C-alpha cells in the first residue's frame, strides 16, 4: 500500500551513490569505467539485490542490524560536541556496507560478499578545516563486517556497536580519535511511509530509512595527542537500499537538525545538473512526538551565501534558508571549510558539516548539513 509522497523522506549520502556504484553493474559506473560489456560473465552466479518496496514496516530491534541482501546500507552518526572552556565541535562517523556483484560460487574466504567503508571527521573552528580519515575492507576473516539483528559494524579497530539504547563508536583515526557513547533520549524517527523513503519520481528509487535524533553524547576525543572529555547531541541515520538515486539527479542537499525544544527536522532535496529540484522530502517531529512528513513541494532549499574551496575550486552554499512545511529556518555553518576530500576511498569530494539553525535571528537548533554534487556531478 502506498503512502503519500510526504513519506519519502530520504536523504542524501552521496557516498551512497558511490557505494551503489561500487556495489553493482549500475550503468553509470560501467560507463565511468568505459566498460563496453557486462562485467559479469554469464556463467557467474549472483543472487539479485533485494528491492525496496512500499508497504514494508521497519521493525525494531531487528532492522537495526545489517541487511546484507540489499546493495547498500549505512549507519551515519553526526552531531555537536561541547567541551569545557572551548568552542563546540562537529563530528561525523559513517559506516557503509555494500554488496559487490561477485561470483558467489567462489569458495575463497576472501570472496568480497560485502565491503565496508568508514569515514570519520571532526570539525574544529579553531583549526578551520576538517580532520578526516577513512577505512575500506572486505568482510572477511572477521576483520571487518556488519552483523544482522543489532547495530554492529566494524573495520579493524574502528567500530560502531549497539547495546539496547546505547550506541558506542570507537574510531582511532590517523590524526584524531573518537571514543563516544550515544544514548537514546527519544524513540527512533521512522522516515517516509513506515520506513519506505522515496528518493525520486520513480518509486523504485527509494530506501528503507529511520533516524534516531537527540542522542545524548558522552565520551572523549583525542586531537593532536590530547584527550578531552566531551558531551553533546547527535543524530543517527540508518538507511538501506538497492537503487538509491534517480538517473537525473546530480547531487543533493540534506539536513538533520536537533531542535532545542526537543523537536527534530530532516529535509533533503535531490538536484539535477542545473540545480533544479528533482525530488524533495523530509519529516518534522515535535518534542511531544507528533510527526509530519513533507511532500516534494513543501520543501525548499534557498542558498544565502557561497564559499569557494581553494583546494578543489568547488563552490558550496554554506548558509541557507530552509522551508519545510510551516517551518522556516536559516542555517549557518559552524565554519565554512567543512569540505571532505574522499577521492582516495570513494572517489568524490563533498561538504559535510556542522550547522546552527536560526529562526528569526535566534538559535533554535544544531545539526548537520550535507552538500554533494558541487565538486562534480555525482555521476562518477
Amino acid at each position, binding site marked *: 500500500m502506498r503512502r503519500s509522497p510526504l513519506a519519502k523522506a530520504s536523504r542524501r549520502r552521496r557516498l551512497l551513490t558511490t557505494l551503489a*556504484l*561500487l556495489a553493482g*553493474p549500475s550503468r553509470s*559506473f560501467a560507463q*565511468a*569505467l*568505459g*566498460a*563496453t560489456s557486462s*562485467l*559479469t*560473465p554469464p556463467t*557467474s552466479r549472483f543472487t539479485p539485490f533485494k528491492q525496496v518496496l512500499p508497504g514494508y514496516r521497519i521493525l525494531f530491534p531487528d532492522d537495526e542490524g545489517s541487511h546484507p541482501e540489499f546493495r547498500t546500507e549505512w549507519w551515519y552518526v553526526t552531531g555537536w560536541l561541547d567541551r569545557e572552556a572551548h568552542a563546540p565541535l562537529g563530528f561525523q562517523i559513517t559506516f557503509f556496507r555494500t554488496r*559487490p*556483484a*561477485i*561470483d558467489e560460487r*567462489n*569458495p*575463497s*574466504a*576472501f*570472496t*568480497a560478499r560485502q*565491503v565496508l567503508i568508514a569515514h570519520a571527521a571532526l570539525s574544529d573552528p579553531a583549526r578551520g578545516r576538517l580532520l578526516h580519515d577513512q577505512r*575500506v*575492507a*572486505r568482510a*572477511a*576473516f*572477521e*576483520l571487518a563486517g556488519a552483523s544482522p539483528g543489532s547495530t554492529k559494524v566494524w573495520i*579493524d579497530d574502528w567500530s560502531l556497536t549497539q547495546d539496547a539504547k546505547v550506541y558506542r563508536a570507537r574510531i582511532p583515526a590517523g590524526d584524531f580519535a573518537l571514543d563516544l557513547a550515544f544514548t537514546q533520549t527519544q524513540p527512533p524517527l521512522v522516515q517516509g511511509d513506515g520506513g519506505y523513503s522515496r528518493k525520486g519520481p520513480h518509486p523504485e528509487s527509494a530506501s528503507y530509512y529511520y533516524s534516531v535524533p537527540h542522542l545524548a553524547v558522552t565520551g572523549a576525543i583525542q586531537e593532536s595527542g590530547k584527550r578531552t572529555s566531551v558531551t553533546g547531541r547527535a543524530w543517527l541515520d540508518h538507511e538501506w537500499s538497492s537503487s538509491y538515486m534517480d538517473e537525473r539527479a546530480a547531487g543533493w542537499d540534506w539536513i538533520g537538525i536537533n531542535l532545542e525544544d526537543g523537536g527534530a527536522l530532516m529535509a533533503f532535496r535531490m538536484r539535477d545538473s542545473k540545480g533544479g529540484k528533482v525530488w524533495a522530502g523530509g519529516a518534522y517531529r515535535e518534542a511531544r512526538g507528533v510527526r509530519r512528513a513533507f511532500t516534494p513541494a513543501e520543501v525548499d532549499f534557498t542558498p544565502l551565501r557561497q564559499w569557494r574551496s581553494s583546494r578543489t575550486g568547488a563552490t558550496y552554499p554554506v548558509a541557507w534558508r530552509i522551508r519545510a512545511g510551516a517551518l522556516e529556518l536559516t542555517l549557518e555553518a559552524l565554519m565554512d571549510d567543512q569540505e571532505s576530500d574522499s*577521492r*582516495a*576511498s570513494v*572517489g568524490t569530494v563533498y561538504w559535510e558539516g556542522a550547522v546552527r539553525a536560526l529562526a528569526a535571528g535566534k538559535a533554535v537548533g544544531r545539526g548537520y548539513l550535507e552538500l554533494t554534487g558541487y565538486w562534480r556531478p555525482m555521476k*562518477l
Partner: protein
Amino acid sequence: MRTHCAILRASSGGAWRDHPGRLVLAILGIAFGVALGVAVHLINASAANEFNLAVRSLAGEADLVVRGPRSGFPDSLYPYIAKRAGVRAASPGVELDAQLAGRHETIKVLGLDPFRALQVQPHLLLESRDALLDMLKPGVVLLSRSAADELGLKPHDTLRLQSGTQVVTLRIAALLPAGATGQRVAVMDIAQAQWIFGRVGELHRIDVKLEPGASTARFSRELAPLLPAGTIIATPEAEAERSASLSRAYRTNLDMLALVALFTGAFLVFSTQFLALVRRRSQLALLRVIGVTGAELTRALVIEGAVLGIAGSALGVALGVGLARIGIARLGGDLGAGYFHSVAPALHVDPAALAVFFALGLLFAMLGAALPALEAARRAPALALKAGDEEEALSALQSVVPSLALFAAAWVLAQAPPVGDLPIAGYFAVAAILVGAILAMPRFAQAVLSRLPPLRYAPATLAAAQLQATPRQVGVSLAAILASFSLMVSMLIMVGSFRDSLAAWLDQMLPADLYVRAGRLGDAGFFTPDEQARIGRVAGVASAAFIRSQNVYLRTDRPPLSLLARPLPRGGSAPALPFEGPVLTPGAGDAPPAWLSEVAADVLRVTVGATIDLPIGTGTQPKGTAAKRFVVAGIWRDYARQNGAIVVDRATYVALTGDERANEAALTLDPGARADAVAEGVRAAVANEAGVETISTRELKAVSLAIFDRTFAVTYALEVAAVLIGMFGVSASFSAQALARRREFGVLRHLGMTRRQVGAMLACEGAVVGSLGVAAGLAFGWLISLILVHVINRQSFHWSMDMTIPWRDLAVLGAALVAAATVTAMLSGRRAMSGEVTRAVREDW
C-alpha cells in the same frame, strides 16, 4: 709551464704529427677496453637494480614481508597477523606464474586485496582506484605497463591464462600506474586469484606495515617461531637480496667477464703505449742531451699518456653506455640467459661506476707511459741514442721470480673456500695466473726464440734474427695475445665441458620416451588424479610415472628449492638419478629417504646420512603445516634447478600430504608406438588439451641444449670481443713496429729484397709471434679452465662437471689467431712500405 709545453711538444707533438694513425690506435685501444667493461657492468647493474625495484614495488611501504613457498601457507595466518599487536595494516597476497594461453611464456599473477594493498602498497593502486572497485567483479585484472607493452594489450582487451588444463579469460580493466612496478605482472582480486588458479585457502605473501615506532626486528623475532614450516618473515630489503641471489653467481660471472674485458683492454693500452715509447727512445734521449731533466721528461710522457687516456676513456664510456642501451633493448637484462624474464629493466646509469671505469682506463694509459718513461729518463742518454738499445729498456722484464710467485699464489687461492657463496678466491687465482703468465712472456719468448732452427729462406732468416734480437719486445706482444686468448681458451674448455656433461646428464635424467607437462611453464598447471589415470590408459603407453613438483623455502636467505615427488622404479629403493658418491638405503624404521641435488646439499650444508625437515603438507590443506623429517640418502648432479632440488618418493609424499596432483608425467611407450600418436592421445585424455605440453625425449634434449647455447651465447660474445681487442692490440703493436722500421725496410730494398720478400719477412715474424701467443694461451687457458671448472663453477653454481677439451674448436680458433697475426703483420708492413721507403735511408730518424 712554458718549459713543460716545449718539452711536451718536442717529446710527443712530433710523434703524433708524424704518425697520427698510432695516436688513433692508442685512443681506440683504450676506448674499446673501457667500453666493453662499462657495457657489461651497466647491463648487470641495471638488471640488479630492477630486481631490487621489483621487490620494493610489490612490498610498497611494508616494513616486513611474510613469505611462503610456492605451495603457499594457509590463509588463516592472515587474520592472525593482521590482528597482532603492533600491526597497522597487513596486505595478503597470492603470487604465482601463470602460462599465457597459447604461448610459451608466463606472467606473474598477483592476487591482492585492493583495500589492504591501498594501505600497504598504495603506489600500486592509488592511481587506478576507480578500477580498484571494479577489481572485485569476476574476471577483472589490472596489467602493469611493461606487461601490457610486452603482450601488446590495452585496457578492455582480454588476457587468456592457463590454469591447470583450463584456459581462463580475464578482462583488463586498467593498467597499473607507470611508476608502480617494472615487473610484468597481472594484478587481480585475491579471492578470484585463489579460485581461478586453484589456490583457495593459500597465500604466498603478507606485506605487513607496523605501527610507527614498532621494532621490525622484535616483531619478526616474535612472529617467526609461530609461522608454519617453510614460511619466513623478512624485511623487503632481505627479500630483494634473496631474489638477487638467484642470479648473483651468474651476474658475478658476467661482471668478472667485464673486468677481463677491461683488463685485456687495459693491457692493450699499456702495451701500445709501452712499445711506442720504447721505439721513441732515441728521440727522448736527444731531449735529455739538450738539457731536459729525467723528471721533466717523465712528467711530459705521463701527461701524454694521460691525454690519450682521457680521450680514450671518455670515448670508451660513451661507447659503453651506447652498447649497454642496445644490449638491454636487444637481449634484456640477463643478456638473453633467461634469468630475469619477469623483469624489464630500464638502463640504470650509475655515474660512480662510470667514473671508476674512466679512472681505470686513464690509470692504465698513464701506467703504460710511466714505466718506459721512467726507464728512458734513467738510461744514460748517450747509450739510449744508439740504435738497437730498445731491448735494454725492457731488461726489467727479465726475472721469472714474480711469475713463479704468482703461480704459487694461484695454487693456494684455488684451494680456498667460497666467500659468501661467491668464488672470490677462485677469481683471484685466475687473475694471478694471468698476470704471472704475462710477466713470464718476455722470458718465454727469449727461451723459445733462441732455439729457433736456422732457416734457408732469407726473409725467414731475417725474421728470426729480428725476433731473436728483440725477445723482450716480442714478449710484450705475446702478452697481449695471451691475455685475451688464454681466457677464451679457458671459457671454451669450461663451456665445452659443461655442455658435454649436460648432454650426458640429460641422457641419464630422461630415460622415458615422452614427457608431458601440465601448463608447460609456471606453477598453475597440474593433472588431477582422474587425468593421471586417463593418461596412463592412453594407447601406446607402456608405463607412466607422474611427478609432483613444487617450491619450498628451507633457508630464509635463499631462493626456494624444488621439491620433486616422483615414483621409485619398480622394485627399486632409489630413483635413477646421476648420483655422485654413496647412496643409502634407509631401513624400515628410519625416516623416509630424500635425494638431494648438489646445490641442495651445499645450500643445506648436509651430506649423505644427515636428516632434513621438509615443510610439506602445506599444500591446499590449511591444516597440517608441520615439517616432516627425511634422511639424505644420496646426492645427485642436477643442472636443471639452479636453486637446488630434492627428490622424494611420490608414494611417501602422497601418504604425508594427501596431495595427489601431478605436474609432469614421464611416459614409456610400447615398442612400436609412435610418440606423436601417443601425444595426441594424451591431449585427448585431459580436460583442456591446450594446457598440455608433450615433448619427446629427443626434442627435450635438443631444446635443453639450445637453451644452454643461448645462455652461453653472451659469454662467447664477450669473449670474442676480448679476443678482438687483443688482436687489435697485436695489430697496433705490429703497425707501430712497422712504422719504426721504415729505414730498415729501405736498406733491405737497397740490398735487393723485393717488396714481397719484405712482406714475407714480416709475415714470418707475425706467424712466429702468433704461434707462440697461441701456444702460451692454450697452456695457460687450460690452467685457468681447471680453476673455472673445479673451483669457480663448483662454488658459484654448485655444479660439478667432467672436463672435456674441445680440441677442434681450439685448433680452429688458434689457427685463426695465427693467421690473423700473420696477415696483420704483413698488412702493417705493406702500409709502412707504401711511401717512398727508399728515402727512409736518408732519414736519420
